[in-house]
């Protein structure tokens, strides 16, 4: 695997691994510690910790606060680390749910074809014509922002691309000999779907995952930026960047560091995804 990856793919893969590492070990990288002698956490500020008497508001980056502080004196570095953790975890959860729903719907469409496929295709067509971002914003504005509703609105249209790819793969595979052989041998429908068809149609789904994660992270950031996404106290890229909007004339670090981290995260996802796609799909080979 690694040896067949292009150098861009390797660099972005390493960067991505760093982000994943940062997300998994966020509490040990930046968190409140009772005892200043401990070497963990590395940064002694949690994402929420701010003392109105001692922490400086909107302080420029220095040796204590690597990325500066925000408008109520919270450490921006700690918030970026925890924002990475929150948005990665959330988008992975959205991705998993979308993959499950999308492949199941796509499998049903591709396997049974006919009228069922036609009806579901029309429903998908109608949903994919919805102004999704506006719909998401409206849902969140009305029902309030909590993770449950956020999860629901993010999945609402996200599963569709997985369903499309799975359906297309099923249509390609369904009349091939190994499937017919399974049928003749008397395999049940579910066995044919889950044992024969699904494992053979996973490549396009796997290729889609990094791009899907990137777009979920961007969408989530957009919702939070407008104040309708993640709950307001949670460390998130959108919330940090919204602060950057309010204080852009005095606090460049609020735009540069969270924006840069978000950019690197989505860029490494996209570049890694493109490299993996080129590796898995020989038709696009040089």
């Amino acid at each position, binding site marked *: 695997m690694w040896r067949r990856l292009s150098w861009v793919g390797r660099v972005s893969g390493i960067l991505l691994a760093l982000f994943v590492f940062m997300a998994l070990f966020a509490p040990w990288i930046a968190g409140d510690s009772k005892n200043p002698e401990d070497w963990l956490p590395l940064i002694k500020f949690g994402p929420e910790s701010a003392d109105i008497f001692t922490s400086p508001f909107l302080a420029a980056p220095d040796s204590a606060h690597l990325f500066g502080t925000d408008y109520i004196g919270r450490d921006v570095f700690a918030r970026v680390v925890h924002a990475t953790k929150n948005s990665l975890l959330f988008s992975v959860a959205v991705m998993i749910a979308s993959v499950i729903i999308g492949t199941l719907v796509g499998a049903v469409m591709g396997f049974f074809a006919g009228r069922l496929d036609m009806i579901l295709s*029309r429903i998908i067509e109608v949903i994919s014509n919805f*102004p999704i971002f506006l719909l998401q914003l409206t849902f969140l*504005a009305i029902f309030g922002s909590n993770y449950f509703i956020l999860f629901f609105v993010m999945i609402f249209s996200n599963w569709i691309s997985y369903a499309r790819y799975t359906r297309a793969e099923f249509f390609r595979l369904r009349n091939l000999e190994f499937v017919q052989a399974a049928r003749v041998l008397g395999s049940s429908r579910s066995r044919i779907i889950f044992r024969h068809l699904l494992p053979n149609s996973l490549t396009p789904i796997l290729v889609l995952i990094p791009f899907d994660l990137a777009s979920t992270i961007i969408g989530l950031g957009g919702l939070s930026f407008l104040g309708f996404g993640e709950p307001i106290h949670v460390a998130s890229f959108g919330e940090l960047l919204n602060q950057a*909007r309010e204080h852009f*004339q005095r606090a460049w670090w609020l735009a540069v560091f969270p924006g840069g981290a978000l*950019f690197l995260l989505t860029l490494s996802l996209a570049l890694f995804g493109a490299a993996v796609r080129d590796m898995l799909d020989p038709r696009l080979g040089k």
Partner: protein
Amino acid sequence: MRAYFIRRLVLLVFTLFGITVISFVMLQLTPGSPLELKMQRDNRGALGEQSAISEEAMENLKRLYHFDKPIHVRYGLWLNDLIHLDFGKSFAEHRPVLDMLKERIPVSIAFGLTSILVALFIGIPLGMIAAAYQGRFIDYCVSVILIALYSTPVYVVALVLLTFLGGGDFLDLFPIYGLKSDDYETLSWAGQIWDRAHHFFLPGLCYCLGGLAFIAQQQRSSLLDCMRQDYIRTALSKGLSERSAFLKHAFRNSLIPTVTLLGGMIPGILGGGIIIERIFSIPGLGLLSYEGLLNRDYPVIMANFTISSFLVLLGIFIADFLYVVVDPRITFDERGEG
């Protein structure tokens, strides 16, 4: 042709029906009906603490606004108004939503059209250059830049531009607010044009980047696809130069999938604008929907949903139309099957 239009009409009706029913039901089921929210406002439209209105008057108002009727009847009434192009009156601004839309739509169209034109006249050549130098250094640079542009959230670009060029601790090159300066009226006509362009630049840039990267990437891959086709091999083997095979045969055919994607950019006129218009305080449709949501201004929200569904379907129509125009082999009926 007839079959095509019937199919598209059915899609239009179902989409419009789906989106308006969802948003209508959603808005009506919220805690505190729209009417109660309206009644809590004072004359200037601000939310008051308590509803200062008697039960009886409230009942009368409910009857006036049809809130005593079941939800499907109200939806029918709303639909009836819509057919007469009546979007109702804004709760927050106490004037017809249609008037507000009339002010906002030209702004959004200006930005949307700019981004489509930039994608067309910069994105397509960029994709061509990358494809022409496939596998070489230029292709590598262009491809990486395009992926970077495409995967950068537009709000990050906008905020970095704002921070560094908007007159904070760094350069003060561009205005940061609205469409024109406060002293716009006093300027000469050249000054006015310059002022508009000056205000337009940063938000316009943000509007363009995503579409530009998208179209350029598509153009690159579709051109590479075309270069692998048999007719190119035929053209080369009958002695045509690579240059003219590329420009005359591959390029023309590669435009077919790209041009049709431009139709898909039309819904972005509204959807893509919300964040950019919020950052740069541009009074377009995007900002209108954002304000509508903040104020729970239901007629405005419903109008926005209707307009954006229309834009999506307009985009599909234009994409189909372009498909038939650029590719004479395809007829409308075949497109309708898709």
